[in-house]
């Protein structure tokens, strides 16, 4: 049950935050260059992501035996998780700008505003490429994280359930965008995702290397607690060292 809930929460947070960033780019393209081309670019990227999800999940991961699979998934989750955690620590220590999808939206709009205006008739390829690339890059991380979390003992169900929760939440935010985006504590949420993904990474990697965790799935809780404790010490240390 612990692994199921943590997988669900981890997937929901990771997918939600990545989707928010993708949505910020698509909304900026729609506002500056037109809704139609933004949606075409985003739809093309979603098609490629569906293909990537099929190749990574049922084709590649499904054919690897359990122990090597746990090592592959553990390494992938550690790489993603520690990167999210590293950035989270730097943000909480004031050593990196806070994460903000609203700021990203405004920056993207300013960058698009500086481009040549779209052609009066015919497709706006600049808009399609910007929207498509944004969705593709953010979405690829979603596909990799969901596939890795879904390769655990609990199967794909909690990862997909978390993804569904995230999609609904992000669409709801998209409908009433601006103020809710500004209010989201994105830096703290990303730090939490870093802890959850890193905890799963350590857990799976050790199991793949023949280790049996004391307490079984409950190991995820004390691994997470150790990661929080160590990273909070880093936050305090870096904040104290920060230039005035």
């Amino acid at each position, binding site marked *: 049950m612990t692994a199921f809930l943590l997988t669900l929460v981890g997937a929901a947070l990771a997918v939600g935050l990545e989707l928010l960033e993708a949505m910020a780019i698509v909304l900026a393209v729609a506002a500056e260059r037109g809704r139609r081309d933004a949606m075409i670019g985003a739809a093309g990227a979603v098609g490629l992501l569906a293909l990537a999800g099929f190749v990574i999940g049922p084709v590649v991961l499904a054919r690897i035996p359990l122990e090597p699979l746990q090592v592959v998934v553990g390494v992938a989750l550690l790489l993603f998780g520690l990167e999210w955690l590293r950035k989270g620590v730097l943000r909480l220590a004031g050593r990196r700008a806070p994460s903000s999808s609203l700021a990203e939206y405004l920056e993207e709009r300013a960058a698009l505003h500086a481009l040549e205006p779209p052609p009066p008739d015919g497709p706006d390829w600049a808009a399609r490429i910007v929207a498509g690339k944004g969705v593709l890059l953010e979405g690829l991380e979603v596909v990799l994280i969901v596939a890795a979390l879904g390769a655990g003992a609990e199967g794909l169900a909690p990862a997909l359930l978390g993804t569904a929760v995230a999609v609904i939440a992000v669409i709801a935010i998209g409908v009433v965008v601006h103020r809710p985006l500004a209010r989201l504590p994105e830096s703290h949420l990303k730090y939490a995702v870093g802890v959850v993904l890193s905890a799963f990474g*350590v857990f799976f990697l050790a199991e793949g290397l*023949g280790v049996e965790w004391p307490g079984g799935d409950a190991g995820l809780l004390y691994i997470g607690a150790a990661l929080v404790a*160590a990273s909070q010490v880093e936050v305090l240390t870096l904040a104290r060292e920060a230039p005035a």
Partner: protein
Amino acid sequence: MIAQLRKLVLGDTWTLPLGVAVTLLAGLALDAAGPGWWHRAGGFVVLGGALATLAASLRRR
């Protein structure tokens, strides 16, 4: 695009992939050597490797 994909998979710093690789290699070596304690306590070695990797990546930016 390639640079962004590399950054997506490996992150902003080489310290993380290097640290994870060292942790993995140490784990594989210990698993193969099969000391008695590894089966029960090896997870804490992996956890230590992850924490050391995080600390190193925060020092080398």
